[in-house]
């Protein structure tokens, strides 16, 4: 059936707001530029070669700082500007982490991390994709992530927090009937005197629910995780973080 116009049926706002073309910052020299470009392009096939070439000229911390991390910063910017979608950011993150692994081998030790974050998906919930995205974005931003996995009993989360003393803990749930584990975890931690920011998000998890118990901070989107971790590592308590993100 031919229609004269659909203008009053829907508007394709996505086409009105197309992102600008990709422009990327320059590296300090040619070898670092190649590393930076490989991260920006998510070039997993060539990252080993270009990182090794850069390591022949520079020390590992320089390759990490001026090539890998700088490349990832560009990716974050491109994502924020709408040039990149999530998959480009994830592939670039994979590429950067592969490069860091090579540098760490050369250094003979792991790169200093900004802090530890423990992540999990609620007991009874097998939907852990949101958690995996959080893990990838945190790692890409220099945090150590302890991934407890999916369908994690309350006891295991509490025990891990007590043992490893992270700067922040996160919980992901798709269903409202599994997110109830978050309140139990928060209650147990608070009872034991552990006042840690507990970021909860995913699916049907609501601001109203998460802010109904102490320690809880509602995470609207996985992309917030690095900034939240930065706040937690900088010493922001859960009250301050709740005010900033959920106020």
């Amino acid at each position: 059936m031919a229609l004269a116009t659909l203008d009053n049926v829907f508007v394709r706002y996505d086409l009105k707001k197309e992102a600008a073309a990709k422009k990327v910052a320059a590296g300090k020299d040619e070898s670092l530029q190649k590393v930076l470009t490989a991260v920006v392009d998510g070039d997993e096939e060539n990252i080993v070669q270009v990182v090794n070439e850069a390591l022949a000229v520079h020390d590992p911390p320089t390759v990490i700082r001026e090539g890998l991390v700088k490349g990832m910063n560009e990716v974050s910017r491109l994502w924020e500007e709408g040039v990149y979608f999530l998959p480009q950011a994830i592939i670039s993150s994979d590429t950067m982490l592969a490069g860091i692994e090579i540098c760490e081998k050369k250094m003979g030790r792991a790169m200093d991390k900004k802090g530890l974050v423990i992540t999990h998906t609620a007991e009874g919930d097998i939907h852990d994709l949101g958690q995996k995205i959080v893990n990838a974005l945190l790692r890409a931003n220099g945090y150590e992530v302890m991934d407890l996995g999916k369908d994690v009993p309350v006891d295991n989360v509490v025990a891990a927090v007590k043992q490893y003393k992270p700067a922040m803990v996160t919980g992901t749930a798709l269903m409202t009937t599994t997110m109830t584990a978050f309140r139990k975890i928060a209650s147990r931690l608070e009872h034991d005197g552990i006042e840690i920011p507990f970021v909860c998000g995913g699916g049907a998890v609501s601001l109203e629910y998460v802010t109904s118990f102490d320690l809880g901070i509602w995470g609207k989107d996985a992309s917030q995780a690095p900034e939240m971790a930065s706040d937690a590592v900088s010493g922001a308590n859960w009250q301050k973080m709740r005010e900033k993100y959920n106020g």
Partner: protein
Amino acid sequence: MPKYTQMAYNSADEMIFGTAKHPVKYGRDFEVGGGFVYPELVPHPRPGSEETKKSLLREYERMVNDVLERAVALGFPGIQIELEHVWQMTKNPDWGGDIAGQTRRQQEDYYKKYGLKSAIRATIADNRKPDQENIRDCKSLDLALKTFESSAANGADNLSMESVGGKEISDYCIVRQDIRGVLFGIGVLGSRDMEYVWQKIVAIAKKHGATPGGDTNCAQANVAMFMAGGLLDKSVPHTFAAVTRAIGAARSLTAYEMGALGPTKDCAYEDPIIKAITGVPISNEGKTSACAHADLQGNLIAAVCDLWSNEAVEYHDMFGGTTPAVFTEILGYDVALMNTAIAMGKAHDLKAMLVNSDKYRDPHSFVVAPENAYQVGQALVANNTSYYNRARAAAIKAGELVLADSKMLLSAFEREVLQKTLRELESFPAKEADFVDQCINTYKKVVPGFNPANYGL
């Protein structure tokens, strides 16, 4: 192995809401696809009510009563209620069984008093963890099968599932825009897992005289679609999600090859393709599932439905009553309009309105529009030599259709993603065995816990 070699319908024009080639009868004088559309209401318990069996039974008793009461109050001829299991209902088979029994008694009461036609779908939770356990022999599967038994024994008329086979691969690949892994995880592994699981579900249904309903690619294609999100979201490209949907159709088809009879699951947006191939009645959700999620085919997806659903609505009070009552009313009047169109001989006009409302809103709606769904189905059955071949053919056809229609506008980025996806699909091996070898070799290295033996590989 794939079985469908031809389409159930001669053309997409022949497909219409309310009528399926193979209607299904069950419940209390309830027929799906027999000439009319019925509402399917899915109530969801409030957090906290799942703490004990007693509190959950009481929650369902209230919700179901609110649904039936509103249906009678507004003169709706019939309704199906879906008991979509929260984890606790499947983990404890007696909980699922008792809730099915309670719902049956409530429906019987309304049938006796008022003649309200009704039925129950029990959708058992698939709590298996493919990257952590042997999904063909694990406690989660054992409990799920026991809960199918208890539900059917206590009065569930339709047994359905949202199976998760291959999810460990598709989750990894959807967020990396890796079409090879999506094709492998959904098209190959998902289909193989469904073959295994659905044989068991169909056997249980037969034993108890229940109807094996259907499955949905909720765990995979819906992940891609929901991550693609609205027009301005920047998570998964919309063209990539649309191609993923076509692959999901090839996988969901397996349930009907194993003996499922429909109606299909409401959240299976691939259902128009399934109906075109199989002729089973389908359940769909669109604008009426805004209580659970947003999508870009709110009207279109009703075009060939046989049940019209709300996905899931959590139990709360609204000005107009409780949420299950309110959504019963919304669904009931939507269905009344469709059935009025049928009665007035205007069904195809209404179908055209529903389709044109959304067809060019997004590539996803475009692919599941009946005329395109039909062509994807044709590609699928014409390449039925293996799960891989048919899923790949469906994906290629979906992508080609999107690119070929000048009215389906795409951003430069989305077009580039789709063209790259098609190039990759075309480059894959011709033989399933070669593709599987390639994928096992690749994903065993990068997806922790991936175990090909879970899929008989």
